[in-house]
């Protein structure tokens, strides 16, 4: 049973990936400036270089052959060469992955935990001060443009209070006596960007958690559980949460796409050396191969995250295993 569910989800994901590939392919071909023009724009491009590109992209072939070539290159991990950096796209991307993963990962974890705690508190004490406070907090942070929040946080915590550095991932050029010192330095730099990103996310998580939990709390099985004589903490932990977690998982995964949007802003504000900024730079520089590569990577990771969420869902909810 379980394997079938998994299989179905994987097939669905593959279908989505296929859409993404087609879309990616089409999008970057209808974008102004086809690959050839991009190469030719380089004033020094030699005739051979143009020929090479033509062949590489199969521009002299029919569109489906071109798409095939595109797929073939993808499967061999060849995403082309960045116009901007003159390096294989994969190489450029790999160099920038870690900072983003670090920041997004931390922010997601923090936001999930905080959002769940706040959401649970709010739902359990519905109508109380705690509920109102956490609700207002979530709604207000949820309503803030990410970049604006980031700037405000810099103004408060870096400029006024001097607690954290304004930007970057490490103090630039610092050589660290040991690993620990470096981690400490990185941690100081991480605080504000992670805070910005998680604050924006917390809102949605809190609200989702609160709403699903309120839903769950009205379910008949909660009355049953209460009738069994359990106390509130046990009820929440053992009965309400496992049920309320189900929609949360989906939201968290879907949010990953949103978080990436947030990273573009956060990385710009905090000069964070990650993928979001790389992508924005690539966009501005019309570095199509790079842009396409990042786009693909991000989309794939969101799809994979969704797949993982679906699988987790299946694991947590016996009903969908079939």
């Amino acid at each position, binding site marked *: 049973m379980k394997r*079938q*569910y998994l*299989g*179905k989800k994987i*097939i669905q994901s593959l279908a989505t990936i296929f859409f993404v590939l087609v879309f990616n392919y089409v999008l970057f071909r209808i974008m102004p400036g086809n690959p050839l023009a991009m190469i030719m724009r380089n004033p020094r491009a030699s005739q051979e270089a143009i020929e090479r590109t033509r062949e590489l992209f199969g521009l002299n072939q029919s569109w489906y052959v071109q798409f095939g070539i595109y797929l073939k290159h993808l499967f061999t991990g060849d995403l082309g060469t960045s116009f901007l950096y003159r390096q294989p796209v994969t190489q450029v991307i790999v160099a920038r992955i870690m900072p983003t993963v670090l920041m997004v990962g931390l922010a997601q974890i923090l936001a999930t935990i905080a959002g769940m705690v706040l959401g649970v508190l709010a739902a359990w004490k519905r109508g109380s001060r705690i509920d109102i406070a956490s609700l207002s907090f979530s709604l207000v942070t949820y309503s803030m443009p990410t970049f604006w929040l980031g700037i405000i946080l810099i103004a408060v915590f870096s400029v006024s209070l001097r607690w954290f550095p304004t930007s970057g991932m490490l103090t630039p050029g610092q050589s660290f006596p040991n690993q620990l010192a470096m981690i400490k330095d990185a941690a100081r730099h991480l605080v504000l960007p992670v805070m910005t990103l998680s604050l924006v996310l917390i809102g949605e998580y809190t609200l989702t958690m609160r709403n699903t939990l309120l839903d769950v709390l009205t379910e008949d099985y909660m009355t049953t559980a209460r009738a069994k004589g359990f106390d509130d903490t046990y009820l929440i932990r053992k009965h309400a949460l496992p049920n309320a977690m189900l929609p949360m998982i989906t939201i968290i995964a879907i949010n990953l796409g949103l978080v990436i949007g947030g990273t573009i802003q956060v990385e710009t504000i905090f000069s964070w050396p990650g993928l979001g900024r790389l992508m924005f730079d690539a966009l501005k520089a019309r570095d199509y191969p790079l842009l396409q590569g990042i786009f693909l990577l991000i989309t794939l990771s969101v799809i994979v995250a969704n797949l993982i969420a679906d699988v987790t869902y299946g694991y947590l909810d016996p009903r969908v295993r*079939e």
Partner: protein
Amino acid sequence: MDKVVELKNLKVTFVEKQSFLKELLTKEMPLVRAVDGVDLTIKKGEILSLVGESGSGKTTLGKAILHLVDIAEGEILFQNQAVNFKHKKETRRFRQKAQVIFQDPYQSLNPRNLIIDIVAEPLEVNGLVKTEAERKERVMKALQDAGLDPPESYLYRYPYELSGGQRQRVAIASALILDPAFIVADEPVSMLDVSIRAGILKLLVELKESKGLAFLFITHDLSLAWLISDRIAIMYLGKIMEIGESDTVIKQAEHPYTQALLDVMPIPEVNRHRQRKVLSGESPNPTNIPAGCRFHPRCPHAFDRCREEEPVLQAVNPHHLAACHLIEKKKTQEKSHD
């Protein structure tokens, strides 16, 4: 008497929903044989009750007659004619003549429509009214026929503003507005409070009598069936087990399944700690219908033949048929006694 509906060896199957992957990998798909070979006629001015446990295929049979589900095999004659559902006009004419009332009056009315719109919908869908005044008039007449008096006070309300009984009457009104010849009433009272049920039942009987309507009355409550219908058909796992005039079926039940159903019927009488002959197990599932007599695994009287040979409906008397090997056995026993 006029036959309104005639079913010949009707079969309805569903493909059990399963995962895409499995669909890809396996060629054969498990079939749900919801209705599995039913012959039946319903006559003008008659209420035929269809009784059986949950999952026995009652609703499916009802829907099949109205062509709301696809028919796998067999034939349906409506007023002695086969309806060609590919033909739009013919379909439309059929839809006007055959209507349905559903079990749940809370769910079967669109909560966002006004009563007048709900009742008038069949008229509109079939393009049968021209003017607003005519529309209202016909709706009022239908409401009145369904026992909602005075009709004006219901026109501009929403379903949630009505009680369950009133809602079911609205549903009936909407079924009546096209002047149908035949109505499938799928457990029309099972969701209603006992105190209201009687009114609806009375209405159905009245309609049958005053308009000569034919009803297929679906229920799992034998006593209701007995009270209002002319004939009763007992269904088990997609097949008719026993059919006959209602008194006969209740008072002289031939089929062990009918007897079991009768035995578990609650009666408002002090009968403390009566140990009822309750059939064990639940209604088995129609994907896997037992060989031989489909009832044999739960039958207290099952014998070898039941496991091997599927009994057909046979006449106990001209107005009473049952599908059970016991009848023959009894007959041979009687004969040998003679």
